[in-house]
């Protein structure tokens, strides 16, 4: 590492090289940080988290009890041991709180003035962070499993929503309309994701074992459907032809550059696809256990040497190298099933939040050094929690 620093200093190396080397080193040496804790607000499980893109300072979390909490991840106290406080909450006493569990939360990609949450009470609410009142409420006919706002969109402000219906609704933030519908799937849509490379490309995963990639400007059907056998009809049983997985597909994540797409399914497999052609790259990750009936939120690192994918696997987070498929490490620390993980862009601190049936939801941050944060959350089963203790590892000052 000193070699990299000297080379950077002398101008022999590109600055990007040092950054990449350092972020890879941090990811490879991730451990649970005992010094950071996160305020425990959620009584039950935490279903989803999101860190804002602009500063990486504020984190949203949505719980199984319908509560939404915003945390401040920065440590200004000067002390090593720090508890990340919650800035504000949309608690049960709020008039506009969701009635059932919140499934997805996402910050507005350009600033923290707004965030969108969707829940099993069949609504999606666009909240004003200042007043904590919903500026817009979209209602649907089925439970909303997932929604996503494009992080790079300039020409449109569409929110893609996946519900129990086999249709994908596109809701427009600017006009409040929700006329556009994408048809093609045959069962509930478990996950939707916009491409981080092209603002009109959307990928959707459904319980009918298919993953479809759409261009929202096109009026007729999807661009293509991902096929795990790459068109080789002889490999599969006849019902499994043209499917992405041999079970429900419940997790979708694009890599940072948008060139590849990772999908996870209840057949305990994770697959890497070329997002331009839909070809299965046939990287074999082995068994990636997945028992989720809802969507699985996982994260891919950005800017590391070999890219890493962090997938929640039962009560730990498994780290795989994206292109070779080898299991790099397993991050243990949660007491119960992990539901979602999110990577903080600047702090290589994986935070996992989980709610256990016996204990309460905890938010744990694993870190070695500050830089990239990683948050993983565990889904919680509906049980009355005992004392919830949230430990959020903060960046260790070295």
């Amino acid at each position, binding site marked *: *590492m000193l070699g990299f620093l000297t080379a950077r200093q002398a101008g022999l*190396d590109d600055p990007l090289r040092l950054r*990449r080397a350092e972020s890879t080193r941090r990811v*490879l040496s991730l451990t649970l940080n005992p010094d950071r804790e996160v305020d425990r607000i959620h009584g039950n499980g935490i279903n989803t988290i999101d860190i804002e893109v602009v500063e990486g300072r504020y984190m949203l979390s949505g719980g199984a009890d319908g509560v939404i909490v915003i945390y401040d991840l920065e440590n200004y106290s000067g002390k090593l041991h720090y508890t990340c406080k919650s800035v504000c909450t949309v608690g049960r006493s709020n008039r506009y709180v969701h009635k059932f569990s919140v499934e997805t939360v996402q910050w507005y990609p350009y600033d923290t003035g707004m965030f969108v949450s969707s829940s099993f009470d069949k609504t999606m609410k666009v909240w004003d962070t200042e007043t904590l009142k919903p500026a817009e409420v979209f209602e649907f006919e089925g439970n909303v499993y997932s929604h996503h706002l494009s992080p790079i969109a300039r020409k449109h402000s569409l929110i893609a929503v996946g519900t129990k219906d086999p249709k994908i609704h596109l809701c427009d933030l600017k006009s409040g309309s929700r006329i556009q519908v994408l048809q093609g799937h045959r069962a509930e849509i478990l996950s939707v994701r916009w491409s981080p490379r092209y603002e009109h490309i959307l990928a959707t995963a459904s319980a009918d074992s298919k993953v479809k990639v759409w261009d929202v400007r096109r009026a007729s059907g999807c661009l293509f459907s991902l096929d795990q056998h790459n068109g080789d009809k*002889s*490999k599969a049983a006849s019902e499994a032809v043209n499917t992405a997985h041999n079970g429900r597909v419940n997790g979708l994540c694009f890599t940072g550059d948008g060139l590849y797409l990772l999908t996870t399914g209840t057949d305990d497999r994770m697959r890497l696809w070329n997002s331009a052609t839909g070809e299965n790259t046939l990287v*074999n990750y082995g068994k990636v256990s997945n028992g989720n009936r809802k969507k699985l939120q996982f994260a891919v690192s950005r800017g590391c*040497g070999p890219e890493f994918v962090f997938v929640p696997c039962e009560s730990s987070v498994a780290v795989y190298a994206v292109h070779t498929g080898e299991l790099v490490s397993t991050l243990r620390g949660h007491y119960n099933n992990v539901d979602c993980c999110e990577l903080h862009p600047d702090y290589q601190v994986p935070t996992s939040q989980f709610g256990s049936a016996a204990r309460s939801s905890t938010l744990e941050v694993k870190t070695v050094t500050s830089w990239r944060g990683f948050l993983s959350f565990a889904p919680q089963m509906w049980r009355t929690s005992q004392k919830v203790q949230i430990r959020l590892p903060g960046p260790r000052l070295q």
Partner: protein
Amino acid sequence: MNRKRALISDTFKVKKRRNGTQKFGAVSDGDGPTDIRSTLEYLATLFPRKLFNDSLPQIVLKHQLYSIHDDKTLVDKELNKLREQGELLMFQLGFDADAFGLVFAADYKSKVLAGEDGRATRATVERFLAKLLSPCTELSFSKDKMLKEFLFTDSEITQLVKSGVLTVRDAGSWWLSIPNSGKFTKYFIQGRKAVLGMVKKSKYSEVLKAELEERRTTSHVKFHMKYHIHDIVGAELVESIPTTSGTLLRFVDS
């Protein structure tokens, strides 16, 4: 040292070795291009030929290779290469969507023809085998393909099914299969269940690999213990943990 050549991953090799966990009891294999073939040959020796009176070729399961080599993607790539060269054949065994059986093409041909000796269907089977080893990397065939590409008639297809080379997949398509492999599948599933049961019933559901190999097998386990161990480790039905006393196999609750 040429700075330009230094890869980012090189920086981590030193760090990993210093701080990484020691590997106890685990033997790492150098992965060269010919190593997959030698692993296949080694696993084939574990297959019991006497049990089936030499009527079956030696079958190795694809996931048994995963238990020996670390990099699954590399194993897959090498297998595909061997299949494209026409030296290896892959079969969908039927009891699991992921369980694929591998047989050397020469073995397969000789056993099938030996089984067809004196039967009327021999000629059709010979023709089919010639087309198959041309080389063909498909696991199943649809009616279209059989009629047009391979130029077989309906009655000939029936003959192939009767001889066991094709098994019904659904209306109008067939899996490639090994004749008389029903007994193999039955004994294999029985043996797998018995071995998994042995691991599960042990204290803490874990047992040292060396100890498991030493154990007396019940009459349910007809194959060599090592064959079953490679199978359950490769299929990730048990976790393989390196310890100071050797490799430990722990049952995975799923």
